[in-house]
């Protein structure tokens, strides 16, 4: 049997079903008939179990993201720009100097990758220095 051949119980497209119903009438019902009271009981049990695991996981991730943002804002309220090491709201030579000192000392500095290339190296210092002297609107 070819692998791409559809199985017999697979439904035809909606348009084709409509055409077939017009030509041959409605198909006979298949499967086991379920009484309505059993269906109600099953629905009640499903509702009692609460939301699905996927929904619960999504809510937890969203809550964690909100908490992370709030914690970051509490730790450095003035750090508005990437590379604003001292958190005074502007990127200047003081930030560049501190970044260079941190790089030379070899300390693990999580905010040092200012050019977002995955590494904390001299390129970050050069990037920040260029940003500090960049001419904006006067």
């Amino acid at each position, binding site marked *: 049997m070819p692998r791409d051949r559809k199985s017999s119980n697979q439904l035809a497209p909606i348009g084709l079903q409509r055409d077939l119903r017009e030509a041959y009438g409605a198909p006979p019902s298949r499967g086991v008939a379920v009484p309505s009271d059993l269906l109600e009981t099953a629905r009640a049990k499903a509702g009692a179990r609460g939301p699905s695991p996927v929904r619960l996981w999504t809510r937890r991730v969203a809550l964690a993201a909100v908490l992370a943002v709030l914690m970051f804002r509490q730790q450095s309220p003035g750090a508005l720009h990437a590379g604003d090491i*001292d958190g005074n709201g502007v990127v*200047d*030579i*003081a930030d*560049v*100097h*501190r970044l*260079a*000192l941190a790089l*030379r000392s070899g300390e693990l500095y999580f905010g040092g990758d200012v050019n977002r290339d995955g590494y904390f190296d001299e390129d970050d210092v050069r990037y920040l*220095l*260029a940003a*500090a*002297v*960049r*001419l904006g609107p*006067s």
Partner: protein
Amino acid sequence: MIGAPLVALSLALVAAGSPNDRLGAAVASEAHTESSRFLAIDVFVDSGDWPLASWQIEIEDETHAMELVGIEGGEHPAFARPPTFDAAAFLHHRVILASFQLDGPFPTHRTRVARLHFRMREQSIPKLVAHLRAATSVDGELIAADVETVPGEEP
């Protein structure tokens, strides 16, 4: 008989000059009326007793009559190399200079950190406004300092 008019015509064309010659004369005339001169401006930073490890200065030409044409370093070995700046400053009347040094010795008190070269119109009077944005000491801490711009030696 025909040679005399041809010679006269040739002499007239030579006397009129080529189009390029006339264009050159016009440019020379314009350069004469818009004569310019060059001016060097020394930038000093006075950090007092604090060793100066980094500095950042913004300089603006309020008259818009000067054109930045060159930037040199300072007198102290720590800042002998030209400072970092945005190349767009050559097209504007404003420049932000910055430099830092990790290894000493570092200058203290008043030291020349840069020299700027301007081209300006002959009759214009320069008016530069310098503003110290930041200066740090050896450990990266901000320090108070004064900035001053004075006309330097003529190139």
